[in-house]
């Protein structure tokens, strides 16, 4: 009777080969994790003559997106953009406004915070992604929808609006799905910064507020 194939019967190269094959087979089933990290350029623009406060809540500063695989052949995705979000908005806002101050706590009645003209509270409402295996188009895409609140230090609303951002990157030789999604996310973040920088003063509620300020009303601010 022939002995069953067991650990003791296999040679070392065969074991390695089996392990390699198993790894290859299982590679498609795990979660693909992307941590988006990047440096962003300072915006080239005349700063608005305002002191802006910023408050990032935990959901924003640690923002991550998880998409569970719908089938065995697909992978789950975990895209962490929190660190890059904070990096982008800090760099952008410091270039857009004369002074930027980070708040001690979320603006509201009784909360002690530095004196500023207004406080910006950014949030990521939604994030979607698409990869070539989903769309049959040879680009990786990231789409985000931001929600911004501009409030007084006491927490009273001045303006609230949403803003989309989109980024894509083409497929490239020897580029992994994770690397391409990371690049697409960086393009989307740059797009968010560009969109915000060029439209902030044109948001109707923001425009009305800027015109109501004594110093801004005299000389309308342009991005």
């Amino acid at each position, binding site marked *: 009777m022939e002995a069953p194939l067991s650990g003791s019967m296999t040679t070392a190269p065969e074991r390695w080969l089996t392990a390699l094959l198993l790894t290859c087979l299982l590679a498609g089933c795990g979660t693909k994790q992307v941590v988006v990290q990047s440096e962003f350029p300072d915006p*080239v623009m005349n700063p608005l003559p305002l002191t802006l406060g910023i408050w990032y809540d935990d959901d924003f500063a640690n923002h991550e997106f998880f998409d569970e695989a719908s089938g065995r052949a697909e992978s789950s995705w975990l895209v962490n953009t929190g660190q890059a979000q904070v990096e982008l908005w800090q760099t952008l806002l410091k270039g857009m406004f004369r002074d930027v101050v980070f708040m001690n706590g979320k603006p509201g009645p009784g909360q002690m915070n530095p004196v500023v003209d207004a406080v910006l509270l950014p949030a990521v409402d939604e994030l979607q992604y698409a990869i070539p295996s989903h769309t049959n188009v040879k680009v990786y895409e990231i789409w985000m929808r931001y929600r911004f609140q501009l409030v007084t230090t006491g927490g009273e609303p001045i303006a609230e609006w949403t803003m989309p951002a989109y980024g894509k990157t083409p497929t490239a030789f020897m580029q992994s799905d994770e690397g391409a999604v990371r690049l697409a996310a960086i393009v989307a973040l*740059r797009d968010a910064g560009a969109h915000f920088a*060029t439209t902030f003063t044109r948001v109707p509620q923001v425009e009305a507020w800027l015109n109501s300020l004594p110093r801004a009303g005299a000389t309308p601010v342009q991005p």
Partner: protein
Amino acid sequence: MTPRRLLLGALLVSWLTGCVNATVDQMVFNSPTEGMGDASVVILGRRHASDYETEPGFISCVGKHIGARDPAIRVIDELEFLNALYPWFEPRTAPLRPADLEKLFAHRDVVEKFATLQTRYMIWIDGSTVRGDSAGSMTCGIGPGGAGCFGFGTWSDDASYEATIWDFTQRAEVGRISATASGQSYMPAVVLPIPIIAPVQGTACDSVGDQLLDFLSTAN
């Protein structure tokens, strides 16, 4: 023996590339009349289309091609330029027509940045390389005795690019170049797969680069 082997290898590699057909069209509206001096050139990819994107690698290839053939022409790296003028040349905000430059130059900081970079020509490249029809089949196997493949595969690649040249001093479009290239690649496999790749994108890069070089060298 080693040099002979190297020569044989080089000959084999050159023989193992697929055939590529390339066509180039050039239209120059305003031929350069004066030298570029210390001015620089920037080559940027158009990235507005939803279903394709001009490959950053292609833009880099054209820039390197020009820089290698004529070191007197200073080509600014695409990312360096985009970062230096952020957020005005992102896909959402980039000027689509030379007339849009006037609006951009209304910003004092942008004008100062351009003066620092000394950019005279801006070259926009729009297009992509796509994989066309493919045929054939190949099977690969692995066993305790070894591994190998058997079969034959073939596919075609098509590249189509258009370069538009803007002159900052005239605030006008001064030239347009289009290049198309197509080629068939093959991969026969008897134990080992042997890729015979047609350098379609590389040929398109050389074609666009040569035409741009012709234009810019006249200005130089």
